[in-house]
């Protein structure tokens, strides 16, 4: 099912025409209404008329976390304060909170975005949607709430914090849809299993987001609850959930390109990468009135696919997130993400071995060593097989990251002991001293 076929299935040329027109207007608006943006443009000698369409987007300076911090709370506001009808904010655990400031139209477009996403997951006016994202400053609760209401579904705003109460509502109202974080949903599944209540629920699907999750988690959710799982994406500073969502093809998340212009750039150089190449997702909000973002760097690593999807939608798809740019290492001039290494190691026999990447600099040359624990499943009484294992690791890494790594086989449990479970990188280079 498609909520807004006219937009979601637009031919590519029409999408680009619409984006170009909207981008021009946006640049005009921020240049004249937001001093911060105007100064940034003037610093690079840019005037609104220099941007004639999306082909000129690379001329525009990026907006970064640092900009948002400097402009906190409402320095980037593009409308008079009286136009704003709501504020949302992130928890701000790593700095100042990120702000969402919405005009009435921003709220409407947000609801439209979420309605498109939920319809993609099969939600209709006949459904009962239990929203178990937090309500409050966090965008999850109210975002899902407005979207489901727009569709005309029956919304139960349970919020978070009380699993027993949630399960009661789930069963009493025979909710058909649940919107919450995937890890919380697994917790709910566990509780239902423990209390033998799985067959008392009528869920058909879930719309999960707000945290990264794996295919394995999706499979678990689908199997244990007998439902279909969909992935929703969005950031508070962009608006909240509802920027993109995955369809039945599960081949990436369709992003609402009529409202959000996505780009993929090399995180190190900021230059555009070709479709399909992995880099940092950069988003420009084309229609946001309150707090528009121009080329906002999300730090999320992914690639974009522009092929028409089997579901009929033409809107570009954000591929599986491959990590955060904050984790990126530059080794011999090559961008390396620990997640790439992890994915490559996973191909060896289906489970990621315990590993540690050690980056060093010897005689002004970067070196990469991968230490792999020889767990029992890799063990062999033949030296040759163990050397083959090391060769295999070398070759999958060469394919994945294009670098020759030195592979060192180490005894089991040696890595966790010294490094802690999640630490996979040791960078010994002293690059900034």
């Amino acid at each position, binding site marked *: 099912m498609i909520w807004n076929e006219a937009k979601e299935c637009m031919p590519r040329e029409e999408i680009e025409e619409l984006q170009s027109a909207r981008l021009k207007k946006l640049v005009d608006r921020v240049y004249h209404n937001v001093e911060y943006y105007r100064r940034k443009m003037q610093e690079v000698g840019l005037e609104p008329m220099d941007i004639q369409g999306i082909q000129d987007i690379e001329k525009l300076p990026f907006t970064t976390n640092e900009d948002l911090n400097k402009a906190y709370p409402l320095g980037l506001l593009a409308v008079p304060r009286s136009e704003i009808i709501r504020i949302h904010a992130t928890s701000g655990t790593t700095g100042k909170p990120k702000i969402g400031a919405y005009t009435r139209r921003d709220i409407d477009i947000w609801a439209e975005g979420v309605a498109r996403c939920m319809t993609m997951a099969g939600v209709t006016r006949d459904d009962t949607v239990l929203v178990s994202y937090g309500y409050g400053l966090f965008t999850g609760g109210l975002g899902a709430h407005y979207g489901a209401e727009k569709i005309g579904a029956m919304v139960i705003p349970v919020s978070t914090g009380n699993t027993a109460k949630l399960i009661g509502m789930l069963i009493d109202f025979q909710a058909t849809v649940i919107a919450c974080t995937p890890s919380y949903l697994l917790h709910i599944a566990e509780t239902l299993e423990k209390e033998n209540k799985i067959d008392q629920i009528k869920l058909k699907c879930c719309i999960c987001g707000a945290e990264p999750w794996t295919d394995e988690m999706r499979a678990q959710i689908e199997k244990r609850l007998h439902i279909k799982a969909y992935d929703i994406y969005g950031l508070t500073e962009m608006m909240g959930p509802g920027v993109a969502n995955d369809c039945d093809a599960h081949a990436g998340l369709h992003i609402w390109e009529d409202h959000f212009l996505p780009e993929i750039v090399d995180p190190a150089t900021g230059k555009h990468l070709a479709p399909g190449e992995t880099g940092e997702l950069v988003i420009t909000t084309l229609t946001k009135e309150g707090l528009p973002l121009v080329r906002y760097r999300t730090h999320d690593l992914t690639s974009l696919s522009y092929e028409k999807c089997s579901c009929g939608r033409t809107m570009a798809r954000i591929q599986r997130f491959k990590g955060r740019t904050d984790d990126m290492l530059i080794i011999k001039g090559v961008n390396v993400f620990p997640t790439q290494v992890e994915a490559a190691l996973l191909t060896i026999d289906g489970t990621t071995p315990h590993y540690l990447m050690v980056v060093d600099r010897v005689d002004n040359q970067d070196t990469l060593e991968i230490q792999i624990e020889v767990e029992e499943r890799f063990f*062999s*009484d033949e*030296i040759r097989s163990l050397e083959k294992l090391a060769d295999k690791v070398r070759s999958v890494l060469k394919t994945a990251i294009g670098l020759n790594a030195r592979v060192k*086989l180490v005894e089991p*449990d040696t890595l966790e002991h010294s490094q802690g479970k999640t630490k996979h990188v040791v960078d010994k280079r002293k690059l900034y001293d």
Partner: protein
Amino acid sequence: MYVKQLSVFLENREGRLEEALKVLKDNGINIISLSLSDASDFGLLRLIVSDPDEARRVLKESRFSSQVSDIIAIRISHTVGSLFEVLRAITEAGINIEYMYTLSVGVEGASLALKTSDLARTDELIGGMSVHMYTQEELG
């Protein structure tokens, strides 16, 4: 007839061999034969011990990766060419010798451990020759 061999993965770090041997000693496991093979930065310790499965268990508790596998252990006389005869029979049958090492069991003649690509056929072949094959009991 096969004999159980215990192999232990050793990182090239100071004292790891001693530690592995200490674990076995502390658990009352008797080492009948020991052979150490080195690769560029790791080593493999191959052992014939009194109780291979128990040895593997105690090594695992001490965080060593190990494996118990079958090998063929033979004793050949010191007459010229007797080892050659055995190896030729194996290679002519199209079987690869994966590895081979001397067993340090104090008896007359030379004792060898053999691992081939086809242990069952090797067993048959050697069974037909005048070569002594050890049983587990004989060594343990």
